[in-house]
């Protein structure tokens, strides 16, 4: 595929998926009603029909949230795969998702309101990575990637154990179902306020990754090579980790733990546009957003009840990825 045409094509596909996703859901809204509702909104009509409520209070925020989640997780995954020079890395390698999960299930255990649960999730994710970074710095002075990864594994395992303990202590009739469902990931309860809070954070977090994408790509050559090319490795690494953690924690706080997307979408992007990070990152963001919107559409309309997102991303993404691998075997993997 000609690389110059791919990114615009992906962007167009993303918009197409967004439009289609907005029209599908348990509450039937024909496409012409979608357009009419949008027109009413633009004009500023005061009397909302039920369709307006469904569209603007429930469905569009959800579609937008799905795009944010997909974009954030894919970008974080792509950045980490370049940073750690390892194609099997997911955004959770430093424990941000597990830490966010711990914060949120503690909130559920304590019976806190939803906003507090989300905030605890966000805080838990950030705190976990801070602990990991501090631990790695204390152990080896911050220059060694391996120590960082090991610290991430250890702290992530501790957070995972704490989550299991919370599950044992939770009330099986009232709290445990909520905890289980949260840990599987879902956008069923997304409100416009959630999107309004998450959107700026994700944009702020993605900005450094996008602006510095050439230098991040250089990092995958190895520390010495990168330094020889004028890249400040330690500082760049810190920026990438901070940005990826910020976007991941903020989306996990509203959607719960969704695995597989951050691991797989960068590979899809790589198969389409090649391994160069400055092309792969925008492609990952676009593909991730579209993929998540499609999966969430299925989550809300596949059955009469909500299907957890984490289940769907694995069930759909796995075979899809195998198919892409079989087709694009000629493309280089780093």
């Amino acid at each position, binding site marked *: 595929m000609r690389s110059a045409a791919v990114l615009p094509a992906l962007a167009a596909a993303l918009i197409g998926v967004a439009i289609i996703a907005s029209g599908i*859901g*348990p*509450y*039937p809204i024909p496409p012409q009603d979608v357009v009419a509702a949008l027109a009413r909104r633009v004009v500023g009509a005061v009397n*909302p029909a*039920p369709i307006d*409520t*469904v569209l603007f*209070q*429930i*469905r569009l925020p*959800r579609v937008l949230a799905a795009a944010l989640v997909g974009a954030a997780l894919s970008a974080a995954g792509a950045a980490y795969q370049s940073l750690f020079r390892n194609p099997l890395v997911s955004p959770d390698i430093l424990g941000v998702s597990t830490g966010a999960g711990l914060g949120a299930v503690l909130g559920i255990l304590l019976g806190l*309101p*939803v906003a507090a649960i989300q905030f605890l999730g966000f805080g838990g994710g950030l705190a976990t990575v801070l602990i990991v970074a501090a631990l790695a710095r204390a152990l080896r002075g911050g220059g060694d990637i391996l120590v960082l990864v090991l610290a991430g594994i250890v702290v992530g395992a501790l957070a995972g154990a704490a989550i299991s303990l919370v599950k*044992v202590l*939770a*009330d*099986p*009739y*009232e709290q*445990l*179902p*909520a905890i289980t*469902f949260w840990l599987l990931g*879902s956008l*069923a*309860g997304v*409100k416009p306020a959630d999107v309004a809070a998450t959107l700026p954070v994700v944009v702020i977090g993605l900005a450094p990754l996008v602006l510095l994408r050439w230098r991040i790509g250089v990092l995958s050559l190895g520390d010495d090579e990168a330094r020889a090319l004028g890249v400040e490795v330690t500082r760049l690494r810190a920026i990438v980790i901070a940005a990826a953690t910020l976007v991941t924690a903020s989306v996990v706080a509203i959607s719960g733990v969704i695995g597989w997307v951050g691991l797989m979408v960068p590979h899809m992007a790589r198969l389409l546009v090649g391994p160069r990070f400055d092309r792969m990152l925008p492609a990952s963001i676009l593909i991730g957003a579209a993929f998540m919107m499609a999966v969430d559409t299925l989550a*809300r309309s596949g*059955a*009469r*009840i*909500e299907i957890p997102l984490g289940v769907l991303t694995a069930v759909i993404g796995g075979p899809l990825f195998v198919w892409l691998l079989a087709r694009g075997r000629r493309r280089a993997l780093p």
Partner: protein
Amino acid sequence: MNTSLSRRLFALGLMLAAAALTTAPAFARTVTDSAGRAVEIPDTISRVFAAGPPASTLLYVLAPEKMIGWVRAPREAEKPYLTASVRDLPELGRLTGRGDTLNLERLVAAKPDIVIDFGTINDTYRSLANRVQQQAGIPYLLIDGRFENTAEAIRLLADVLGVKGRGEALASATDAILRQVDDVIARVPASDRPRVYLARGTEGLESGSRGSINTEIIERVGATNVVEGLREKGGLVNVSAEQIIAFAPDTIITLDRSFAQTVAGKPAWQPVPAVREKRVFLAPSLPFGFVDVPPSVNRLIGLTWLLHILYPDKAPGDLKEQVRSFYKLFYQVDLDDAALARVLDGAG
């Protein structure tokens, strides 16, 4: 002559041993529990361990004097609605069900005469019962917890515990309530049956699908549960706000106080008929839930309550008096007007 003497000594030794063994425990009766297991139980039973919250509630209504503790200690708000002798019993933990927190050693240390479990009967629970019985040496009875089996369950446990008089009184009251329900719904045509959504959690997005134990009594009073599940026997499910709008329930029963208070102000719920017509009802929960949790005999009064809110013109009698007499008979507490109002208001 040596062999016949040693043979006699051997026979004497055997008889002594047999005598010693038979004098130890006083297991005089054999009962058959709901799972078809023949269990040997002592003649008199004075200490009973309840394995989970449904069993706890069943034991409390039948024989509170034989309780040795609660699965979960009652909260302060619940204590005034329980009879005085059980309010401060210790919390012992749960033995089976979703989440074991009890160590078998602690079970033995509590020195119960028998253990009872009230809930699902399947091979898993049968084998669990047998294992505990063998390891701890305490008789373990399984009682079928299905709602339509309530009167039978009461009679079975009453027979085991030796409180047949009380058991018969409670079982007759149970039959009377169920007859009343059937009477009322026989007079309601199918087209007038309400469409009900059970809203759990502060966001109200968790519910029980059709056939689930959570919505059992809502369906028993003839209402249609709007949430169709994937299987015939439902369970806990999550739904999106959009889906609820599409279901268009005309009545919402919620278990969460903050949901009941805030739902009218949530824009995403405005298109729901139940919210527009202000038919959102908070289920009482003192001392035990009327509708959902725990899934035990406490739901009988929930049937009466549902009759009055779903079919107000057809439900017989005064709800307040019926609640008062239920609490007196089953929970052995007298409710004054203030307490009754607090219960029906959904406090706690």
